[in-house]
């Protein structure tokens, strides 16, 4: 077997050195009733050719986003990741290294994390960021837990514009932690309801901008209202490229910012692995979940980096930890950081402007289709449209015609009574001809 270096001669020699007669002697502690000889339901060893053949066939049964007009967003976004990113993350020293617990031989990883933390803090406009979380949704849930620790209150207000998967993930965690979640009604302009929902027992308000319907909001007033009531404002962003165009959440007064970083450096990958961004104000740093990388010096006075403030984490506090996180999303954070270094301020701003422009072109084309109503007034690169028919059904028909037209809101939340709403997204990878085909096909399907 190609991945197993031991030869039969090796094994014999090693058993001799151990003083065991056979390998079974080493498994002597396994109860006889539990010993298995084999598995009839599983195939035996296979060479690369066979494995590649089978898996390529499975992959071929999926329609790639790049194969035609494609307009899905809603929490995961298709962007062009420069070729060098994927090459660099596959270097042995990045791909096959472990968590940097031995900093003397992990300065590569640690310096990357320090740069990553700085980039995330800059993008979000906050004082400090951690070394990444699993994804945006779990980062959101952890932020609510953190707000509970900081304020010692047990009520979290979730805006109606928050991605329903994020709502559900947060509710799942909050439920066991004794935090009551109040989810406001889903609406394109849901942020208008938030301030009225804040009370004296509110630990935090969670507001997404741009929200799941694409609406971009200035949350400055919400921040002020929350803080006046002693609550924290948690801002959620699912499209990290939007930081290149819009005012940062930090600038608008956020206490904690969580985001999905997938758009930068990481492909769609059918939902994972992704990378959660988590940033907050300086005064909250000891309550932050996740790993943190800090600067220090070595025995010769040279600057270096180490994981720090580890006493918050599970392997030390055990049952008093700030969360049970063990892993961050290291390689995805590296990809994010490399892509950010390539883009720089100049490139990110340009990329963001391009995304917005494409979305405006999409808006213009769809607005011309009779019966289609554009619902989102101000957006970054995605927005919601109301169709005169069931959105999921229209989507299915369009898919049959080669157009992946977006995400019906009912797929995320079918109890909201918005079965006629479609979420559409355009990025720098969207071509003018894609938009034309989409508009044309949509017209035909609606008026069929």
């Amino acid at each position: 077997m190609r991945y197993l270096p031991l030869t039969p001669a090796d094994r014999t020699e090693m058993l001799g050195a151990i003083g065991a007669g056979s390998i079974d002697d080493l498994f002597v502690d396994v109860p006889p009733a539990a010993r298995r000889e084999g598995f009839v339901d599983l195939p035996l060893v296979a060479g690369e050719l066979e494995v590649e053949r089978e898996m390529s066939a499975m992959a071929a049964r999926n329609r790639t986003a790049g194969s035609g007009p494609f307009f899905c967003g809603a929490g995961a976004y298709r962007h062009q990741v420069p070729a060098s990113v994927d090459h660099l993350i596959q270097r042995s020293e990045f791909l096959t290294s472990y968590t940097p617990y031995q900093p003397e031989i992990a300065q590569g990883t640690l310096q990357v994390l320090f740069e990553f933390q700085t980039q995330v803090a800059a993008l979000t406009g906050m004082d400090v960021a951690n070394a990444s979380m699993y994804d945006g949704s779990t980062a959101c849930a952890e932020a609510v837990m953190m707000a509970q620790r900081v304020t010692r209150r047990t009520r979290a207000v979730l805006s109606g514009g928050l991605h329903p998967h994020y709502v559900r993930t947060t509710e799942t965690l909050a439920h066991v932690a004794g935090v009551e979640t109040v989810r406001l009604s889903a609406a394109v302009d849901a942020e208008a309801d938030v301030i009225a929902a804040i009370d004296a027992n509110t630990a935090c308000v969670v507001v997404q901008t741009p929200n799941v319907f694409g609406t971009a909001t200035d949350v400055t007033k919400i921040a002020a209202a929350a803080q006046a009531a002693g609550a924290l404002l948690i801002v959620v962003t699912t499209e990290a490229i939007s930081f290149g165009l819009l005012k940062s959440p930090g600038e608008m007064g956020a206490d904690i910012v969580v985001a999905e970083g997938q758009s930068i450096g990481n492909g769609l990958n059918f939902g994972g692995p992704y990378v959660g961004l988590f940033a907050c104000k300086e005064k909250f740093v000891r309550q932050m979940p996740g790993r943190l990388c800090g600067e220090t010096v070595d025995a010769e006075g040279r600057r270096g980096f180490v994981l720090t403030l580890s006493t918050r984490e599970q392997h030390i506090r055990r049952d008093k930890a700030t969360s049970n996180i063990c892993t961050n999303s290291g390689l995805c954070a590296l990809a994010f950081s490399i892509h950010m270094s390539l883009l720089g301020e100049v490139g990110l701003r340009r990329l963001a402007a391009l995304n917005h422009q494409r979305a405006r072109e999409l808006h213009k084309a769809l607005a011309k289709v009779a019966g289609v109503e554009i619902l989102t007034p101000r957006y970054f690169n995605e927005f919601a449209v109301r169709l005169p028919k069931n959105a999921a059904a229209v989507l299915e028909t369009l898919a049959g015609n080669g157009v992946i037209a977006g995400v019906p809101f009912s797929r995320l939340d079918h109890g909201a009574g918005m079965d006629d709403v479609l979420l559409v997204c355009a990025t720098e990878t969207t071509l003018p001809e894609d938009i034309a085909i989409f508009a044309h096909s949509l017209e035909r399907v609606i008026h069929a």
Partner: protein
Amino acid sequence: MSMNSVGRPTRPEASNDVKPATLTGARGLLQDEALIFEMEGWDKTGVDLPDAPAADDLGDLVRSEPIGLPGLSEPEVVRHYVRLSQKNHAIDLALYPLGSCTMKHNPRLNEKMARLPGFSDIHPLQPQSTVQGALELMDKLAHWLKTLTGMPAVALSPKAGAHGELCGLLAIRAAHEAAGNGERKTVLVPTSAHGTNPATAAFVGYSVVEIAQTDDGRVDLADMEAKLGPNVAAIMVTNPNTCGLFERDVIEIARLAHDAGAYFYCDGANFNAIVGRVRPGDLGVDAMHINLHKTFSTPHGGGGPGAGPVVLSEALAPFAPAPWVVHTEEGGFHLLEHEVAEASQAFGRMCAFHGQMGMYVRAYAYMRSHGADGLRQVAEDAVLNANYIKARLSDLMSPAFPDGPCMHEALFDDSWLEGTGITTLDFAKAMIDEGFHPMTMYFPLVVHGAMLIEPTETESKQELDRFVEALRLLAQAAKAGDAERFKGAPFHAPMRRLDETLAARKPRLRWRPVAAAPLAAE
């Protein structure tokens, strides 16, 4: 003769050992690399993008402040990261003996398969009819996991081992609540458990009670039995345990727990020792997370991403979180998302979308490559390698549990270092100079100065011997009183020992534009 003038010396002159320091601080191939923020790249970009008009429709939502991000051309970026990569140790360089981490070779076929556009360029919310191949892959992975563990159901979505533990405990809590057993508020955890176990239990709202350990490193059955009762929701046991030993009484442990109305959560971090030979389902386990980045070779990537699917018993299956992959009547696949939430007792959702698809593809390529027979050989070679190391070091170092074989990892305590003034930490740092990443240190907590060595099955005998030789030489040096070698180690790594106290007292977690005074040790 016809002369040519290109003669020059082709043999080195005799060296006199004096190594002058370099003039720039670089050391041959290894460069000191600044932070990207310290390079002059504030107005550069390494990505060519067309200009786009300013957004005139967004009013004051548009950012007016600069972000503060440097950019560099592609050649500069490539150099920066390649230079940084050279400061990292990695599995691809040498045996990485981290106990409980299972640092096995990361096959590159896995990477190739994960990058097929059919797997990498698909959106989680595309119409399901357009991603049948992806759902099929998830279903096949689920089949392998269920078959290998002998369990009827699996929740694929947890994004890491600890996330899987959370998922398992949430399912257990939901099951108790549904059965009206809400008064069960305690979880029993052995003293040797990994910190995530009690942390997760506490997080889910349980109080944690510790179970004692016997002198031969196993769960103390009598103590466990005494602590079981109508208030216990679950026990959390790792098997093989964190001391690298198989819990001989595991079937009895399961029976006692079940008789007392508690569930048996198994931490599957050490599954590599028994995969293909033992099914946790046969041992009475109710829920077990599997670290795909341990047993199933997905890369560690400097700290993630991982994946922690959880296999579940019949009793817990109904509570598995959304989404579920099911078969359709037409022979296709369907992902149940919100339908699961309403029509079932699913406790909720672990994360957005469907889980770590990229890791599923890699793990599947690995499983398919090995086959059932290959995986069995994996466990056997992993256990053989660990016992070989234990046998070849036992005369110089002190195994914590010398009687009987270990499983896939060998545990030593620091009693052999007594009188030398050298600690486990010092010894580990000296290993770095000899070219090896240190083993897991000071874990499990139940053993003093613990050293936990897990070679895995992807090490050749030559590499094992090289490792053993290095440790033998170091152990002999320690006993001979060569304290200098250890106290200041490492001397030959890219960096010397770092001041972690300073990092924690004066946390500096990002670069700042105004140059602060460099951190100085106090």
